[in-house]
């Protein structure tokens, strides 16, 4: 399951004709924890009852009739089950994971260590601010650093992920307009936008109006002008966008949006391209969300937790969610939900429980302390260098089959189009992706952005070595070469993974969403 980034490897063989070579994992029938164990087994032992036993404290009507049918397993069974399950995952620590738009950069273990310190890990969210000064100081410092990176002064750490930040952003936009007595109805978003953008717009009670993409990969400025009217509350952009293209007309776009009194929203998922190089605030964005689990290396956890703080300009600040952190005259910190003025003074309210995903703040703060300003800039520069190098290698090796979709350079990621490969070689991007699994790589993002047919969105990140990029490019070339001889090999891939290609249609047709008991 691990990437082959060594120079010298044993010649790659044909995949097996039959299943005769099933690995131990493939031979193992997937069995859930609910199918294991026996009544009476246990991993937990309750502390002794050390108070007098009193009956009838709970009315019978409220009492549970049937216990929840949880598993009955010993601790060794529990540990072995989940350790073995873990080995059925591909992970970043053991292989290259160039999943576009997700910024799969190295997760330093220092962050797990500091987050586990009891002063952080066992701090109750409702602890008196006077007795949680370390946490508030950390959050205050993180807000400052994030604000500097975005070039916007006011930061709210509360949102739980990028899409949550988007929702916060659109809701503060709404509050901002309403406060001015304006009831706008539409939000613009380019057709390259991530699905969370339009989904967010709907949840915030706006109508989504898509904006076309121009041949250069940026926003079609004419289309934008045409759609920019006084009913538009906001334009949501990511820059560089999901094509890895930095919008050449960003300044013009900002003018147009501000011209109609709308806000310009920055989807920060691609911030890893521009830290210390170009700041959304300087581009004219009013609101930015960050994905701490991308640019600031919060481990992805198999799909979270994440954290999606937002930063805003002065005019938006009063509407920020509460609570807000304040640094008091005496240098101590406080947490308030009713600030007299400034950020949060006309708050949209609370966006979730407590103060946000503090554990993620600790990690990202540690990361910022480790890299510092120069280090963050180096990270983005290297991310862009790695992406352009891998792009060059791939164009050199297989450019005729997998051309770049837009432009000739990229920022931190790039999109190849598989249409030629599909036509001339006979395999789809999906087949290429599945065959990559046999080579020990996690495939890039496929079929996104939707704008590009047979899209392959590749983001290597700054933490990978040149050796790894070279080996990955070779692997893609190998697969295409192999497919030119025999496309069925890739079409039937993968062969060496714990399970082979899975029937997603069947799963959706007759949903089995829990272990039957």
């Amino acid at each position: 399951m691990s990437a082959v980034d060594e120079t010298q490897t044993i010649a790659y063989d044909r995949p097996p004709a039959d299943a005769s070579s099933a690995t131990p994992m493939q031979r193992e029938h997937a069995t859930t924890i609910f199918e294991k164990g026996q009544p009476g087994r246990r991993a937990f032992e309750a502390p002794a009852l050390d108070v007098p036993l009193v009956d009838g404290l709970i009315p019978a009507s409220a009492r549970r009739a049937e216990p929840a049918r949880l598993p009955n397993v010993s601790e060794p069974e529990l540990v072995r089950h989940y350790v073995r399950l873990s080995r059925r995952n591909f992970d970043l620590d053991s292989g290259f994971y160039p999943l576009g738009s997700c910024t799969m950069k190295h997760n330093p273990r220092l962050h797990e260590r500091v987050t586990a310190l009891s002063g952080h890990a066992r701090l109750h969210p409702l602890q008196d601010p006077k007795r949680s000064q370390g946490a508030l100081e950390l959050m205050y410092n993180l807000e400052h650093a994030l604000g500097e990176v975005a070039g916007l002064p006011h930061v709210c750490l509360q949102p739980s992920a990028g899409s949550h930040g988007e929702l916060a952003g659109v809701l503060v936009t709404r509050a901002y307009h309403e406060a001015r007595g304006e009831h706008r109805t539409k939000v613009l978003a380019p057709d390259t936008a991530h699905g969370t953008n339009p989904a967010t717009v709907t949840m915030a009670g706006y109508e989504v109006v898509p904006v076309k993409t121009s041949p250069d990969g940026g926003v079609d400025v004419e289309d934008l002008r045409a759609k920019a009217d006084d009913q538009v509350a906001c334009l949501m952009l990511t820059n560089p966008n999901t094509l890895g293209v930095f919008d050449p007309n960003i300044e013009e776009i900002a003018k147009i949006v501000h011209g109609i009194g709308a806000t310009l929203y920055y989807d920060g998922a691609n911030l890893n391209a521009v830290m210390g190089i170009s700041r959304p605030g300087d581009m004219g964005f009013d609101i930015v969300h960050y994905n701490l689990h991308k640019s600031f290396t919060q481990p992805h956890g198999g799909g979270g937790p994440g954290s999606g703080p937002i930063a805003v300009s002065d005019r938006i600040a009063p509407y920020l969610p509460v609570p807000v952190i304040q640094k008091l005259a005496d240098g101590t910190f406080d947490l308030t939900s009713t600030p007299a003025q400034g950020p949060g003074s006309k708050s949209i309210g609370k966006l979730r429980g407590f103060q946000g995903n503090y554990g993620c703040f600790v990690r990202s703060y540690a990361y910022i302390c480790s890299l510092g300003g120069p280090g963050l800039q180096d990270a983005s520069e290297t991310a862009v260098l790695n992406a352009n190098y891998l792009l060059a290698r791939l164009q050199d090796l297989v450019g005729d089959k997998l051309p770049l979709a837009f432009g000739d350079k990229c920022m931190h990621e790039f999109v190849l189009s598989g249409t030629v490969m599909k036509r001339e070689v006979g395999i789809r991007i999906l087949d290429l992706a599945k065959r990559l699994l046999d080579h020990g790589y996690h495939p890039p993002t496929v079929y996104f952005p939707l704008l590009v047919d047979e899209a392959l969105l590749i983001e290597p990140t700054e933490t990978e070595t040149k050796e790894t990029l070279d080996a990955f490019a070779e692997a893609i070339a190998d697969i295409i070469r192999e497919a030119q001889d025999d496309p069925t090999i890739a079409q039937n891939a993968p062969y060496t993974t714990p399970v082979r290609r899975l029937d997603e249609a069947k799963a959706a047709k007759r949903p089995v969403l829990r272990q039957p008991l």
Partner: protein
Amino acid sequence: MSRYTAVTDADRAAMLDAIGVSSLEEIFEAQIPAGVRLQGGLDLPDGLPEQDVYAHLLELSKKNTSAEDEITFLGAGMYDHYIPAAIDMLLGRSEFLTPYTPYQPEVSQGGLQVMFEYQTSICELTGLDVSNASVYEGPSAVAAAGYLAKLAAPKRPLYLVSAALHPDSRQTLETLSVGYGTEVVEVPLKDGATDAVALKALLDEHGDQVSAVVFQQPNFLGAIEDVQALSDLAHEQGALSICQADPIALGVLEAPGNQGVDVCVGEGQALGNRLDFGGPSFGFFAATNAHIRRMPGRIAGETTDADGRRGFVLTLQTREQHIRREKATSNICTSQALNALAGVVYLTWLGRDGLVELGELLIQRTHYARQALTAIDGVSALHDQPVVREFAITLPSDVEVGEVIALAQDRGVNPGFDLGRVRDEWNGGLLVALTEQRSRKDIDRLAEVLAESITAARNGERSPLGPSAPKQEVVA
């Protein structure tokens, strides 16, 4: 080059050469308009070696008073349960910690099966048909349930919300429903529990305007609600019954799904997740089959592979933003997979018997504590409803709750949450929470310290740190 990057000068030269440029600057110049380039870099300090960062974060952690530094009875939504060591190990495994959402199921069977097992355990806990793979956290889960009700009944612009719903849930629901224009009407309490009579009146008044009735079990004041009664009232008017539940309490309380609840959600922190000053944790979200296609977020489902092997995939994705975009049932993408893993491992650790034993232990110790504290001169029960693991008392009116808490903390005991921070009508109230980590010895110490602190406050003693956090989250 930092310790996390690997491009040496030699590498860079070779790479630029392959790219066909003479400098990295060329690449940026070619793409970024000069007008938006940042000059002179970020105004942030230089980076630090690993051990200096460790020292700094250790220092910050020591400025916090954690549950390891005092005997704490603070709950009100998050609880200091013991987390089994096996969970640290499993969550620390690279294979669980570092992958992203399982977009490639063939190499994500571990994570996908965990989701499937998680969904199973949540269905068992709530008594409902279908669970998703997690949402952000408790109050967000309540708001998500509200949105589901909105999707189910777009023409019903009201939520009836119990006054004993967690204030964060209440406020989150309000904040997020502004966008789509649903409003919240409060259902008052009677002796600490949601007033069914008042609810009926409100339902009669607003009838077909109400998309959902939202309440909490046990409620914010620790009281056990008559879930069946509240659900029946809601259904009579065609509204959904939405219940936020404490998953630990569900070990001993009837499953909401068996009491007419349509959507049961809650805060998952108590299930094997750290306090972490409030997050990350996870929100669980379960509903009846009727709402399966309105569920938010990821759902794992069972299927087979090309060779007929059992396997798991993300399914029913036509609900989701990456497919349906503006028509999605939710905008959620990254959720809380790792925290949900902790949740299912914790439930497996407790096991069928253990979950019940834990609940029974809490009921007994909580009763003991309730007796001990209300025995203190001047202290009374704020309500007399049955409780599982949390209860509310009223302190003598001649002392400031914030002062008493601060004085108790100076003595090494955190007695609980100042209810006056939430509602004026609860001024003088203290919410006290138990976990299995608080022994009888700890409870006796609490009673001792609380009595002492009340007297001290009366005698004008003041904490050097000043009173505990003043009112600031007032809902009403």
